[in-house]
């Protein structure tokens, strides 16, 4: 079932009016696909979708869970993790404490990848990783530290490509069809809900990754979120964006040093 862009605007307004939830800065093309998907999933036409959003308790939460794109991988873009290990970790190693924020962490694969990479460089003991997302479902999932074993094959390939020299299976226990991330790689991490649109600074970090999240925002919202990430970074802290996302704010380019152009890694210098 499809909707028009006009319908979509109507929906954004409705959600804003009833739930004070602001989807206005989201890229329309992706939102439209997601809304159509929700309508298919629940067999709803546009007016019954609005009706459910207005009158069915709990439906809005289901809607929110489905509206975001949560696809993620462990060691997605292996060359990013190589750059992080070789160009950023040597700096981080000079800090007594390393606070990391994975903003838009989805089901936590990125957080656990960072944990493994840090562990491998003997840095995990000093590190603490905050994983946040707007979607309560994926946060619950991330907290469990359990990953579908079927997916581990692809993740192991990714990990192999980082040239770490060992196998990803060193870091989890396989039980039935689940891969359980080892406890010691989970203890220095915390997952919670945080909305990049409405939330503020909640800590000061040495490293922030916000990957494949900005692509779902329009340029105006990207600027705002980049300001928030900047404000959340310690001086000389690092910002990592997705491989197709850039630091597009002119007023921020002076405040960051480009560490790696292809991997979009920046260091806050002012």
């Amino acid at each position, binding site marked *: 079932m499809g909707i028009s*862009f006009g319908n979509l605007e109507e929906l954004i307004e409705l959600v804003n009016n009833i739930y004070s939830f602001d989807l206005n800065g989201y*890229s*329309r*093309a*992706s939102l*439209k*696909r997601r809304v159509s998907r929700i309508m298919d999933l629940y067999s709803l036409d546009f007016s019954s979708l609005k009706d459910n959003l207005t009158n069915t308790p709990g439906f809005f939460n289901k809607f929110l869970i489905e509206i975001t*794109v949560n*696809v993620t991988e462990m060691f997605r873009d292996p060359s990013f993790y190589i750059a992080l290990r070789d160009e950023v970790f040597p700096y981080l190693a000079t800090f007594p404490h390393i606070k990391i924020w994975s903003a838009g962490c989805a089901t936590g694969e990125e957080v656990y990848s960072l944990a493994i990479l840090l562990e491998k460089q003997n840095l995990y003991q000093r590190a603490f990783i905050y994983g946040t997302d707007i979607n309560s479902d994926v946060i619950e999932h991330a907290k469990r530290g359990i990953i579908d074993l079927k997916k581990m094959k692809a993740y192991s390939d990714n990990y192999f*490509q980082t040239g770490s020299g060992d196998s990803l299976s060193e870091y989890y226990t396989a039980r039935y069809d689940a891969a359980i991330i080892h406890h010691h790689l989970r203890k220095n991490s915390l997952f919670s809900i945080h909305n990049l649109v409405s939330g503020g600074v909640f800590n000061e970090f040495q490293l922030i990754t916000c990957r*494949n999240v*900005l*692509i*779902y925002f*329009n*340029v105006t919202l*990207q600027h705002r979120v980049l300001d928030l990430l900047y404000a959340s970074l310690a001086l000389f802290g690092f910002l990592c964006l997705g491989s*197709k*996302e850039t630091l597009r704010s002119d007023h921020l380019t002076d405040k960051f040093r480009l560490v790696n152009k292809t991997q979009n890694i920046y260091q806050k210098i002012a």
Partner: protein
Amino acid sequence: MLQVLPENLSIGVLVIIHRNAKYETNIETSLSDKCRIVVKMAEEKEYVKPATAYFAPAGYHLLMEPDHSMSLDVSEPVNFCRPSIDVTMQSVSDVYGASTAAILLSGANQDGAKGMQSIHQAGGLCIAQHPEQAEIATMPASAIALGVVDVILKNDELLTFSRQLNNYILRRD
């Protein structure tokens, strides 16, 4: 085909090829010297300009925004493909409707057939490469089987069409 497009081409072109995200290829750069139009990888929130061909980056779906900028999306592969032709075609037809023209070339799965259907329903023009002349016939053949293809063109006809694309656009306006 991109190589024969005239430098004063009055429209933008999106190119979706199935490529593996693991092996970064640079078709854009190697083609760009040989073409009269600009050939580049699509950047997120970049506006589509005339006389420019935008390739979808490996590992991302390419979507069209109502303000005529492009978005990238890492949602699930469609037809095992990301970028998927269906996804881009559906999104482009949402925005450009009847003024969309699509060409489906050789390929090994059914990706593109549903996308062509959307464009067809929106009143756009759907062209398929003649399956006999396609390296792998499945992709154009699937769209033809759906009954959504307006014209089937042989390779030399595809080139002629590309050369004269500007005339065609003027005629439709």
